[in-house]
């Protein structure tokens, strides 16, 4: 009788209290009730993260029916990891509601793991569900870069084919590049005026392909200055570029049959500091007034300072860079500008070596492939937008993904 009286009192009091009060500060009995009623994730699976260096395991699950739906009381998910199906499980992560994936990047490679997941409500946890075993391993191929591999193979085949064509002596037409045709004009002009030639190979080190391209052009220019006995000055901003530049110029003077004209001071180091280097080169320009200035390599903010100073002393200027942000400055201030790919083509163009010319032709083939894909992609995307056809939309999406490179 006494028990019934207590139960009636509890029910009466409970029915008059606001529901929110239970939600904020549940009694023990309420928590027990929630523990039973919070549904776990719909499913749970674990697998070794693909295309990685090992050490990662990916966990995926379906949302608990009460996550964003139903009673909508799930606040997140708790993830535990153990090295066996039973025994100790440590917590490796907690994620917010609405999340369906978690990457455990603390896994040891080669160790077998089991995972448990539970939905977390404010009042307690759901039943834990388990998945595993799973082992993290290093992969031998990064599948996310498969498209890059396809593109690279296509380009390499095209370029190699034309290098081969060049090697067997096929005639390859290469369009005239005005900036490179001007090299002889610039060297000739400096010779006639009895003034020097200034060559700036950019401000980056030898690990930058633009610097390598610049140095390759320096080789051709140095051959001409050696032949015409014109003074050449190559101030550099990196020590390794100085070493490579010296070897290159020395070889060019040897090949031109004028090793007597070569001295180590032709290529000299200034400083690694960007504006310190610019100040020094500007000083050389203003004092020595070279008749021709070449800026071929990687440039940043100093491009316009150099080119405008060169312009102010009346030098004939040839610039080339693959830095798109600096190209407008060179175009505005120099007589000739090698735009992007022309910088890389310069060495082959000037050397007239058949194999090198073949690589340029291969570049053109690569460009043709790019053009075909652009035209096809634009056509398919336009048709997909107009017609709403699922097949065309899928094809357009596939083409977009093909060129979405993952680095």
């Amino acid at each position, binding site marked *: 009788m006494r028990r019934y009286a207590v139960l009636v009192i509890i029910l009466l009091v409970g029915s008059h209290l606001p529901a929110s009060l239970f939600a904020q500060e549940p009694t023990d009995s309420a928590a027990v009730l929630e523990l039973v009623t919070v549904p776990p994730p719909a499913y749970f699976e674990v697998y070794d993260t693909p295309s990685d260096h090992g050490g990662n395991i990916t966990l995926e699950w379906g949302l608990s029916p009460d996550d964003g739906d139903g009673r909508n009381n799930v606040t997140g998910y708790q993830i535990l990891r153990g090295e066996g199906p039973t025994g100790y499980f440590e917590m490796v992560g907690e994620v917010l509601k609405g999340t369906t994936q978690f990457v455990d990047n603390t896994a040891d490679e080669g160790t077998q793991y089991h995972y448990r997941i539970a939905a977390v409500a404010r009042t307690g946890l759901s039943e834990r569900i388990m998945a595993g075993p799973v082992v993290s391993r*290093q992969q031998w*191929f990064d599948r996310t870069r498969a498209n890059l591999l396809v593109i690279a193979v296509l380009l390499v085949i095209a370029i190699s084919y034309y290098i081969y064509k060049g090697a067997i002596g096929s005639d390859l037409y290469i369009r005239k590049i005005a900036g490179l045709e001007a090299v002889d004009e610039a060297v000739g002009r400096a010779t006639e005026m009895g003034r020097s030639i200034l060559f700036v190979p950019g401000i980056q080190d030898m690990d930058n392909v633009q610097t390598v391209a610049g140095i390759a052009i320096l080789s051709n220019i140095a051959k001409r200055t050696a032949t015409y006995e014109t003074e050449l000055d190559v101030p550099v901003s990196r020590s390794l570029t100085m070493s490579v530049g010296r070897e*290159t110029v020395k070889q060019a003077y040897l090949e031109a049959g004028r090793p007597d004209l070569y001295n180590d001071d032709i290529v000299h180091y200034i400083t690694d500091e960007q504006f310190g280097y610019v100040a020094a080169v500007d000083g050389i320009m203003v004092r020595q007034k070279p008749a021709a200035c070449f800026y071929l390599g990687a440039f940043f903010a100093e491009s316009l300072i150099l080119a405008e100073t060169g312009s102010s002393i009346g030098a004939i200027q040839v610039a080339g860079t693959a830095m798109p942000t600096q190209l407008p400055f060179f175009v505005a*201030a120099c007589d000739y500008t090698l*735009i992007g790919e022309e910088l*890389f083509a310069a060495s082959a163009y000037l050397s007239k070596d058949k194999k090198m010319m073949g690589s*340029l032709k291969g570049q053109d083939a690569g460009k043709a492939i790019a053009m075909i894909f652009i035209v096809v992609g634009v056509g398919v995307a336009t048709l997909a937008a107009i017609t709403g056809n699922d097949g065309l939309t899928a094809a357009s999406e596939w083409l977009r993904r093909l060129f979405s490179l993952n680095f």
Partner: protein
Amino acid sequence: MKRTIPLMITFIVGISLILAIFIPHDPFHGLDSNFSIFYDVIAVFAFILGGGNLLKVHLRKIQDKRLDWKYSIVTVSGFGLMLGAGLLKIGVDGGWSGDYQGAGGLFNYLYDAAFQPLQATMFSLLAFFVASASYRAFRAKTREATILLVAAFIILIRPTPLGYYLTFWLPKPLQFLHIPNLSTWVLSVPNMAGQRAIMIGIALGIVSTSLRLILGIERSYLGSEGKG
């Protein structure tokens, strides 16, 4: 031999780095960062060559009293002062055990009080050079230069109040000519198309140059044959 060994190194390193892009497994994983470290180590030693060359060139110029030799005194003095302040840790809290860039040190003072303002001065010269280059580039001498001038005018006027008030009154069918809209169009359509074309060309150029270097077709950067 002097060329064969570098060519072999270039080939092996080039191929390994290409493979490292596609293979996340050891020993390819992290190969690019490891090679970068090797490169930095070599570059550090090369810096001694660079510093030595700077001193050699300018000291000889001073000794021979060549043209403008007085500037070389400034260069050598600046080099010696910064090097000495850093190596000897002059004025650094904690003396020899302190950081050469530490507060109160002469190196830090010279960097903040002399080097930084000089750098900023050189950088600020750009403002004047931009003005003079723009003047030459935007002269409407040819059809292309006129298009450039009009495009530049639209882009430059956009962020100013004038850019808005000049054309805000245009009726809705002509709103595409409203300067902020026109400017966005210039940047995102013709400008973007040109930039992408250049970028595609650059990417192909890099692939082609890299292939020439890896296959040993491009050798001019290797210097002399030697007798080896």
